[in-house]
């Protein structure tokens, strides 16, 4: 299942410092994987490596928010929904409120449509069921190229 709201939502968000340096080359994209499950982190990290991408991985939403607060920028954030300390919904809201305009892709276990919609409304660009597969990553990177 893919939920997406397209690129138009990014027009209302201010650019993060350094965003103008992004190039539409897959190998130059910076990625943040936010998930409390070490198996998922390892899996997604390997999937991204196959596309020539090296990801930073963190265990919860608060760490992701703190990273961005202190100046880190990412082209793509893969955000788990259920996490301790700060979940994906809250983290996504905070990142968007900070002006982060990364492509944020939610990754969830099969949830109710209502819960997934709430996650989308927090500011996601897309939401996929976990774990991500090569096809889904390929789709995400195509969207990332379009965005850039």
């Amino acid at each position: 299942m893919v939920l997406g709201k397209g690129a138009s939502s990014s027009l209302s968000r201010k650019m993060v410092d350094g965003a103008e340096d992004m190039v539409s080359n897959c190998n130059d994209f910076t990625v943040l994987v936010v998930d409390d499950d070490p198996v998922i982190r390892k899996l997604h990290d390997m999937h991204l490596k196959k596309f020539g991408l090296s990801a930073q991985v963190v265990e919860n939403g608060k760490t992701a928010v703190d990273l961005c607060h202190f100046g880190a920028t990412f082209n793509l954030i893969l955000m788990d929904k259920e996490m301790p300390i700060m979940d994906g919904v809250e983290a996504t809201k905070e990142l968007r409120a900070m002006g982060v305009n990364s492509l944020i892709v939610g990754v969830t276990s099969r949830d109710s449509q209502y819960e997934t919609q709430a996650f989308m409304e927090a500011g996601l660009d897309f939401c996929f069921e976990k774990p991500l597969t090569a096809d889904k990553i390929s789709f995400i990177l195509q969207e990332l190229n379009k965005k850039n």
Partner: protein
Amino acid sequence: MERNPMRRQLAIMRQSLFDQGYLDEQFIQLEELQDDANPNFVEEVVTLYYRDSARIILNLEQALERKPFDFNKLDGLMHQFKGSSSSIGAKKVKAECTLFREYCKSGNGEGCTRAFQQLKREYATLKRKLEAYFQLARQAGPAETACCRKE
């Protein structure tokens, strides 16, 4: 077709894990990520799963000892465990997780207890089978052909 008898045995063992419903296509996704640079990726992920999920199993056991059951907490823990189990393609384990969560939603404590016992059995059975599989894979050595990957 593998000429090496041990690799043939490995292929048969692997196929039986799918045919008997222990694994699903997500396991194939793991295999497709394995390559010469990461030759033990599948075993590493499975080892990580069993190491990390032991903690969740313990939390579930402790939560099931407290009466009355906190079904929300139980459901939350199982949601986490199910996600992890899905990521390695643990099909039967995942099915038991789903059943457990249904019992949580209907407030059926006895059902939860039964489902958890069955889940632990499936979890342990899969662990034994995968350990045997990886041990044989190590003995068999690298594949002559990419038998574990989709062509």
